């Protein structure tokens, strides 16, 4: 099972790296930000699922309440949200390779490992920060006076802005309705009543 997961993750990574696919996904700002980047992070999360059992104890201990890991996630994603960084990835294959390695390994893996360690309140707080920030960045894309990325047109930037706002609204609504009906993802079902239902949603359970 683990070997298969790892093979699937590596295979998907290679497929994403194939020039036609890579160039298609990077030719458009929305595809780049809202499809390629999250996919790369997800591949890292898959790796974390495999690595979980082999994680050295000292690492688990050092990752107190999952905070260091989640800080790494925040830093990694923030870096790849910088217009300059995205530009660099489009223009320079080496920079793109760094993106292809850092998003799974420095964002996806810590996300998969640390999220489970975070107490429910911490996870909920991260969601509650992530959603408005996504919306605000979308709003700023719409309000920006000029192109933010040298490689993307103004209309692509506007579409990216609306996409981010739509994702923020969709995430907010999903979060709300999940809490309203008390939905818990199957991976977190162990003790939904004790652990706080939806708050443990997303990557990995308790």
């Amino acid at each position: 099972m683990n070997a298969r997961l790892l093979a699937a993750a590596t295979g998907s990574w290679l497929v994403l790296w194939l020039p036609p696919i890579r160039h298609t996904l990077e030719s458009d700002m929305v595809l780049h930000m809202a499809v390629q980047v999250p996919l790369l992070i997800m591949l890292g999360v898959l790796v974390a699922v495999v690595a979980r059992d082999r994680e050295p104890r000292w690492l688990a201990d050092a990752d107190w309440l999952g905070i260091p890991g989640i800080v790494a996630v925040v830093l990694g994603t923030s870096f790849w949200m910088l217009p300059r960084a995205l530009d660099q990835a489009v223009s320079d294959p080496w920079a793109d390779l760094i993106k292809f390695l850092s998003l799974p390994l420095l964002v996806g893996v810590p996300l998969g490992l640390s999220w489970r360690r975070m107490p429910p309140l911490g996870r909920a707080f991260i969601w509650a920060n992530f959603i408005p920030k996504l919306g605000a960045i979308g709003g700023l894309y719409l309000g920006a006076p000029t192109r933010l990325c040298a490689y993307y047109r103004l209309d692509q930037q506007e579409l990216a802005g609306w996409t981010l706002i739509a994702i923020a609204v969709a995430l907010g609504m999903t979060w709300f309705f999940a809490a309203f009906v008390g939905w818990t993802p199957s991976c977190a079902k162990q003790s939904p009543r004790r652990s706080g239902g939806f708050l443990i949603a997303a990557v990995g359970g308790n």
Partner: protein
Amino acid sequence: MTIAATAGRTAINPRAAVLAYLAVSGIVLLLMMLLGLTMRLAQAQWIDVSPDFFYVVMTMHGAGMVGIAGLCSAAVMWHFVRRHVPVSTAVFLTNLVFFLIGAVLILGAGFIGGFGAAWTFLFPLPAHSGGLWSVNAAAAYLVGLIFIGVGFLLLHLDIARGILSVYGGLGAALGVKQAFGLAHGEEGPPPAVTASTMALIANILGILVGAAVLIISLVNLYVPSFTFNALAAKNLIYYFGHTFINVTIYMAVIAVYEILPIYAHRAWKTNWAFYLAWVLSTVFVLTVYTHHLLMDFAMPTWTLVAGQVISWLSGLPVLLVTAFGTLTVVYRSGLRWNPAAALVFLGVAGWAIGVIPAIADGTIAVNSVMHNTQWVPGHFHTYLLLGMVAMVLGFMTYLTNPQSRYGVAWLGYWLYLLGGVVFVLAFLSAGSASVPRRYAVHVAQWLPYDRIGSIGAACAIAGVLILIVRFFVGMRTAASAQDPSG
């Protein structure tokens, strides 16, 4: 379902934490009331305040009052909800610390930086000070709001966690099944849980929206070329601001559900109508804010029509079941009136009465005449000062030795009530005579309203001062005491 909350899990005494909230609230409430009085006296031309400073005071009074209303009503909510669900005292106190940091930033922005763009910080005003305040002062104000928002977010999320761990879903905690006849009303969640659920739904969504618009405003301050659609920003700000202040009443009303039954020796009965009211008000509170935009002709007409209709309906369901419930609990119960019971009772009355001019103003035809008049502070001071604050003062009196020294508390009660009535009536009658709101300088014809209003305000503040001093006197014994309910 009762849970011994966090007992034994934390070294911090939860009761002392509630008292700390109330102590901070008492002091800030009084200080903010004095700022309000300063404005009224300036409008009455009894004291001299420069117009620049008037707007600083107005901004500080608005932001300070809205913030402290949130804080003290959160204390009421937390005190009662923790009887039913596990919550963290540490998180509760974290909110207080965040609040204090935010308050320092906001006060610094106003009194040191001169920020005076009103508590509503409507975009793009913070960035256009006309030289009255610096960009940093505006940023300090916005960051202060973010601190306060983050604190409340944590508090509501923690209560959500506790509620979900007991009830499974927010819908169940709100009593949706009971509301639609799918379960017996008597088996529904306790009123404190239902009210806390509505408060957290509304405030979490409001804070998320508020955070987004605050970030955008901050960026606009430092990089003015990043603009944002001003009408969209206004929508977002009112979504957050209106919801936040509105929810304070829904948190404070828990005091009525919990305190009156103790003195009346009668349980607060819940039935399907009670839960249906809370479900409806939850939906309305999230959609009612458009009545703040009735003057914005660029808004799509349907949103304004919806704003009008929802304004009529919004508070009514919960208000009706609460007012009706209050009367049934009190009627022929043999209740021996004491200041705590009288204050929470007054809270329901002040809320019910204040809603009437509010509904009038939520009507487009009336709004186009009354909107920027003192009718508006008239109606919201009625249900905030004589409604929400009365409920909180009732809670404070209830916690701190309600058995003795009634005499002085009654004096405080009557001064506060009579002064408060005169103060709000002065606003309402000035509004009906078209005296504009938010004017630093008033013409001679308006002065009688301002002067009567000032006298009323001074009496009300004296009454509140007595009640709060009495609270501080009783605080020491209250920290170690049991609830009067036993």
